């Protein structure tokens, strides 16, 4: 059962896949039209466009809050004006691969909250699932509307060669960033509209419509004209802009916990015309804080009685409660198995080989190779608390070693991948920087995604950390139409 792990050595220098240029510096064909446009643009022109973009983002208030930053509550995410361009063939792989993954993960969630076939088959260790603090025993035997647990998934993918992809992680709770995907496109169309006339870029702005259709389709049975809301922790949450953005784009109310109340297992919102019934909640609040009566009693963000209303089948929550157990980094390693088990298919996208430090063998190997590995907390997210071996100092490695020894099961490790690089506008001109991609997979009656995603770029030379909370930026992502 234990997968044998290929010991992948760190990438040799110079083997990094440049998405725009061949090794001989000639331009790859899918970047040709862009390169032709760029050829006669002086750096000052780009600089002026970049400044325009920065000003607009600040003025539009497209911001996020940084936790642990004393200087101010909001910041704009740096936006890079050079788009990332993907070939139609590459997109086909990403599209089919991520949809396949989400179908399998959804089947996994349904299974572990019902018959637990996969545990009985011995494919996933029982304690990894049932002993996980993100597993919600309260969800056992409950049939979620339409059988959909993961309405919105953000699958983080890196590219290491022309058609070579690895999934870094699956975000199945409340993945964020889609507003940047949409705003980045609007920004590019505002700044450099002529490029869209020259190139066939697949549109993405129907994302909110698809999302709303899905949410409405999964309303509790019998509701003819469902009322959908987006539930936010409030204006001080780091992703508040996005919550408001999505509510506005879908034309639904953005609610806080205080706007909702439950009476007779039915959820209502307080409106200027009295109480109004709510049928579907796209919640951007973690399970723990949703309902002080069912989960954390000290939560002031949630709605007392919400879980009872959910269990009574009177309201749909998206995503469902208890999805966190499937995006736990120790469960991640089993996703290829799930695809084979539930779908009988061959995984289209590969996992990054992952060492689980709960295993003594893996732990020993990782401790000996900390300087060449990436080590993450099993339940961490946002790039916090991770160690990038090749970039870390001797002291950082020593300190991290102590943390691992204290509780190895809390960590996984992966080889440092040779992330692809895209040309990026920086102080010294245009230079390659490492990127990843987060496409957003939507599940309703079908599993689909709009052709694009959020490209995150590590703005520091050589850096592999693309998280916005760690100084990463974003790019518009263009999928060329076939």
């Amino acid at each position: 059962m234990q997968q044998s792990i290929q010991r992948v050595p760190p990438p040799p220098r110079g083997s990094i896949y440049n998405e725009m240029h061949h090794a001989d510096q000639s331009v790859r064909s899918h970047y040709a039209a862009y390169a032709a446009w760029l050829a006669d643009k002086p750096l000052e022109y780009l600089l002026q466009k970049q400044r325009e973009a920065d000003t607009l983002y600040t003025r539009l208030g497209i911001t996020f809050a940084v936790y642990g930053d004393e200087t101010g509550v909001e910041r704009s995410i740096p936006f890079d004006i050079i788009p990332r361009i993907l070939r139609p063939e590459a997109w086909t792989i990403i599209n089919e691969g991520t949809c396949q993954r989400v179908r399998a993960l959804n089947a996994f969630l349904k299974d572990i909250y019902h018959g637990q076939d996969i545990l009985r088959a011995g494919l996933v260790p029982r304690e990894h699932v049932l002993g996980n603090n993100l597993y919600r025993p309260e969800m056992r035997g409950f049939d979620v509307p339409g059988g959909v647990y993961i309405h919105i998934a953000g699958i983080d993918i890196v590219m290491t060669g022309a058609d070579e992809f690895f999934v870094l992680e699956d975000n199945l709770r409340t993945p964020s960033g889609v507003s940047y995907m949409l705003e980045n496109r609007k920004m590019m169309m505002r700044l450099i509209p002529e490029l869209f006339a020259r190139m066939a870029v697949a549109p993405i702005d129907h994302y909110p419509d698809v999302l709303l259709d899905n949410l409405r389709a999964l309303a509790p049975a019998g509701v003819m004209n469902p009322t959908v809301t987006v539930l936010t922790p409030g204006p001080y949450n780091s992703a508040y802009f996005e919550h408001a953005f999505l509510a506005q784009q879908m034309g639904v109310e953005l609610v806080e916990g205080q706007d909702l109340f439950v009476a007779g297992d039915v959820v209502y919102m307080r409106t200027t015309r009295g109480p109004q019934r709510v049928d579907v909640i796209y919640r951007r609040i973690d399970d723990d804080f949703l309902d002080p009566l069912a989960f954390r009693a000290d939560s002031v963000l949630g709605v007392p009685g919400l879980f009872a209303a959910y269990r009574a089948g009177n309201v749909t929550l998206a995503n469902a409660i208890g999805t966190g157990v499937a995006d736990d980094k120790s469960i991640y390693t089993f996703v290829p198995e799930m695809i084979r088990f539930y779908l009988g298919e061959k995984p289209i996208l590969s996992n990054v080989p992952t060492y689980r430090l709960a295993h003594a063998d893996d732990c020993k190997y990782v401790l000996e190779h900390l300087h060449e590995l990436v080590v993450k907390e099993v339940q961490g997210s946002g790039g916090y608390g991770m160690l990038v071996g090749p970039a870390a100092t001797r002291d950082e490695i020593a300190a991290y070693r102590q943390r691992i020894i204290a509780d190895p099961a809390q960590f996984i490790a992966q080889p440092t991948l040779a992330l692809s690089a895209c040309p990026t506008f920086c102080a010294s001109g245009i230079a390659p920087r490492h990127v990843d991609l987060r496409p957003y997979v939507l599940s309703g009656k079908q599993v689909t995604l709009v052709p694009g995603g959020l490209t995150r770029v590590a703005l520091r030379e050589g850096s592999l950390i693309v998280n916005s909370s760690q100084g990463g930026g974003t790019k518009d992502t263009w999928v060329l139409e076939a």
Partner: protein
Amino acid sequence: MLSRVANNLYWMSRHIERAENTARLLDVTYRMSLLPYRILEPGQSWAEPWALPLVINGIATAYYERYPGPLSADNVLRYMLLDTANPSSIYSCIQSARENARTARGTITSEMYEDINAFWLELRDRDFDGLRARGLSGFFDWVKTRSHQFRGVTFGTSLRDEGYRFIRLGTFIERADNTARLLDVKYHTLLPSVAEVGGAVDYYQWSALLRSLSAFDSYRKVYRDVIAPMRVAELLVLRDDVPRSLHACMNEIYEILRELCDPGSREAERLAGEIHAHLHYGRTEHIIGQGLHEYLMSFLDKLSALNEEIDRHFLVPVYASATAAAPAGARH
């Protein structure tokens, strides 16, 4: 719409209107202070022009705690422009308005958010000494222009829905409140000098009051005559074609509430209708007979009762949410 969102929209426009009114008042006070000036009633420092913004906003005590000693123009300006410790300063009002807009940004148009956010970002980078060095009048004009601009963006981009009505409601309630207070304090200060009607200082005092309410040119057009206190009162209370008069504000408020009210909230509509009728059918002689001060105080009391009713019914409603049964009147 959500009560919390309606409340934020309502306060967003109140805060902007308040900032604009403060800018107007400080602007004329500042201009007047450049003229020869004498204290009319020694000892009554509340009647000093520079005390007006403090008295009108009810923050004189807070001001003296922060700036002990004799009232100084410089300190009042410091306190009313950018002081973060003063919730009624232009800075605090715009900060609050922007915070209200941010909380309600799913409801307002992106143009509106962009506009109020730019207003805030530009204001945030100013400092008092820099403002004074470049000339305060330019700053006051800028605040007024930004306020006009925001109203224009709202008018030009907003769906004419409930949210729009709460935004407009906030604007006119704040404006009516401000006009009544300004008129009361100013009229009281100026009245003892009736004997001097026609004098240069008196002329400037009255014209300053009219200018601070953008009613100076209107006065000229309507009366084609010298400025007389009774006419000033008539213009700013009873005439409904002067956009900052009480009557004009109540026209808007009454109309908006008629559109907003449903059978459960008729009391707000009735209260507004009552205040409106008093202005609509009122006569100058009756006001002067009752005493302008008494008249204005009674107006402010009724406006405050109306405000409470709006709060209770629309903006911060309380239901018995703990009941097990579905609440009465719930809609799907």
